[in-house]
């Protein structure tokens, strides 16, 4: 008899979702669905607001990565004003985004995923969390928490608040880097860098024990998308879009973000509030692509900083052209922390960060604006249309996690196929599905622009839709 497994709710990710696994008559996995069950409606309720307010409003989409929304929104605003922002403002925005990448990646690796990786996927759920990690590896856990704090500190030093700083605005930024703030960052950098290097060496040793995970945690060919600079260097704030295939071949390059609609379609499924973006030339769902750390490392020609580029050469050995296992999102995340720290260090000697020429002034010069930045989880698009007075007529947000939706579904199915044989949910499978999803570091509150907690629910369903087994973890 065919069956369906449901995991609901899924834990240690940001947001709320459930997973259902459909079995065929032979008791094998037919398909798996990752349902995002939250709805918020930002695209609708922002209509009618002055575009000047959009950075402040959309930053509220997420408390983990408000900076990403702040930047993408301000950049969309820059386009509506049709101006180039002052060079100092761009550098300061970049600095804040690097702080954001460090803090968010540190959160994902140390707080959310390290318990699976270091304590073991089959260790007790009661201790397989950040507190269990603190008990087992106090120095490692502390260094990770401090690394996240370092990233948060940069955001606060620039924007006056760790969360939702109303600092990046259409036309530029509101304040520069003070000398005491510069000193504080400079003093903290060596410790942050040591933590990143230590985590990288720990992770590489762990890989020996996680051969199975690298094979089944979302290991399949897809396209990858990310921003790159004019010479293909890793980008996080500006640049153009590049798509590569699983062989590492560039299939579209230097695509101006304003042309995103020619390349990205958004499919809607009735069973989830999360849209499923796809690469339009290949259609839905063949146009499956991944974004985020793994994709950025696959699309870039180099990272542009010495230590990280050395790591990138080791990383590249894990794939044939592109690295296709989603398990390596963790590795890519750590390499990105390293390049972010190296770039922050380079900024510390730049006097322009203290400039007082920070904000360009203009009126409504374009009725449409697309703003793109690389959020920690992947490429983030804010697309606004305004009337002649600057009131928002239409908003389209394409969020990183949404773009990984198809890949996350396929990851769940791949893991389930490996572990589910018959109508009962095994604890090992539950842990691995969670960990597989967690590799993407999904942010569901962002991706549906939704609210709520994020516990795990898995349902096992028969072909007739009947519920066979269910596991819930609060």
């Amino acid at each position: 008899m065919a069956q369906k497994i449901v995991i609901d709710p899924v834990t240690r990710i940001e947001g709320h979702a459930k997973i259902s696994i459909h079995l065929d008559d032979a008791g094998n996995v037919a398909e798996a669905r990752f349902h995002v069950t939250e709805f918020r409606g930002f695209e609708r309720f922002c209509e009618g607001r002055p575009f000047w307010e959009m950075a402040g409003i959309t930053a509220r989409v997420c408390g983990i990565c408000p900076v990403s929304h702040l930047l993408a929104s301000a950049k969309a605003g820059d386009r509506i004003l049709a101006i180039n922002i002052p060079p100092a403002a761009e550098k300061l925005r970049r600095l804040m985004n690097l702080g954001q990448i460090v803090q968010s990646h540190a959160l994902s690796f140390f707080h959310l995923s390290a318990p699976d990786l270091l304590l073991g996927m089959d260790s007790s759920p009661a201790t397989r969390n950040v507190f269990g990690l603190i008990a087992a590896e106090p120095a490692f856990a502390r260094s990770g928490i401090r690394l996240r704090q370092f990233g948060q500190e940069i955001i606060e030093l620039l924007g006056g608040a760790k969360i939702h700083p109303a600092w990046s605005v259409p036309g530029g930024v509101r304040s520069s880097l003070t000398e005491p703030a510069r000193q504080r960052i400079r003093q903290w950098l060596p410790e942050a860098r040591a933590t990143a290097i230590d985590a990288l060496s720990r992770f590489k040793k762990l890989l020996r024990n996680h051969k199975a995970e690298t094979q089944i945690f979302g290991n399949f060919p897809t396209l990858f998308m990310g921003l790159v600079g004019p010479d293909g260097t890793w980008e996080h704030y500006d640049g153009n879009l590049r798509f590569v295939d699983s062989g590492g071949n560039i299939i579209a390059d230097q695509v101006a973000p304003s042309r995103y609609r020619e390349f990205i379609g958004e499919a809607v499924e009735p069973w989830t509030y999360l849209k499923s973006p796809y690469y339009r030339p290949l259609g839905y769902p063949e146009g499956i692509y991944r974004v985020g750390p793994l994709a950025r490392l696959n699309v870039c020609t180099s990272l542009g900083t010495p230590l990280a580029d050395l790591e990138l050469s080791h990383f590249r050995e894990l794939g044939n052209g592109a690295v296709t296992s989603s398990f390596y999102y963790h590795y890519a995340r750590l390499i990105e922390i390293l390049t972010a720290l190296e770039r922050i260090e380079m900024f510390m000697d730049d006097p322009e960060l203290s400039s007082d020429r920070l904000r360009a002034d203009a009126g409504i010069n374009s009725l449409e604006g697309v703003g793109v930045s690389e959020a920690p989880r992947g490429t983030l698009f804010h697309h606004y249309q305004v009337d002649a007075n600057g009131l928002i007529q239409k908003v389209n947000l394409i969020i990183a996690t949404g773009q990984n939706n198809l890949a996350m579904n396929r990851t769940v199915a791949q893991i389930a196929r490996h572990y589910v044989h018959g109508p009962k949910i095994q604890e090992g499978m539950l842990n691995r599905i969670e960990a597989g999803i967690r590799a993407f570091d999904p942010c569901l509150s962002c991706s549906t622009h939704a609210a709520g907690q994020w516990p795990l629910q898995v349902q096992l369903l028969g072909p007739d839709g009947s519920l066979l087994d269910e596991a819930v973890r609060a």
Partner: protein
Amino acid sequence: MAAKTLTIDGRLVGAHENQTVLEAASEAGIKIPTLCHLDGIADAGACRLCLVEVAGSPRLHPACVLKVAEGMEIKTQSERLRKYRRLLLELLFAERNHVCAVCVANGHCELQDLAMDLGMDHVRYQYRFQPFAVDVTHRLFGLDHNRCVLCTRCVRVCSEVEGAHTWDMEGRGAKARVITDLKQPWGEADSCTSCGKCVHGCPTGALFFQGSTVGEMERDRTRLEFIVTAREKKQWIA
């Protein structure tokens, strides 16, 4: 001018006969919460937050329009007053869409300050607000009815200080709104001199300078009082 002596919160206070209880209290350093009152322009008694108890009267009186009288006994603080002031404040919040976190006036808002002063940590009533269109047709300024508390400071400051009377009111109850000229878009209101006094007078984020982002709307109320005083005392006429 005859002087009157009254008691406010147990203190003997002297005042001119034409003064209001609010003015007398203010001069004596006794703070009464206000929202629609603005130094330099006439009072309207629109918000009722300055309600006080008057000995011998069963009802509460707005201090801003209550004239002083000999022997009057006023209480500005009591459990009953706190209860009513908080109720009024909650109703103001429930009537329009006041979301401080994303408001241009966040941190510089009299409504927000009052909520903090009166300990209003939540609203007990169902939010009744309906969406109003934002008017950003003016070259320099914007109007967001969703943040308006209908204090009419803009109406009074425009009429009394600038003398343009661009602003007025339309509608009743939940449909009441401030309007420019005969309900034209602000940018098309011929009577508007673009002086910005209304923007400086606004207690919330309802009136703002174009291009303001979260928390950027800081206002300079002293300018209005300065202009009024200079004119009344003919300071610039030798």
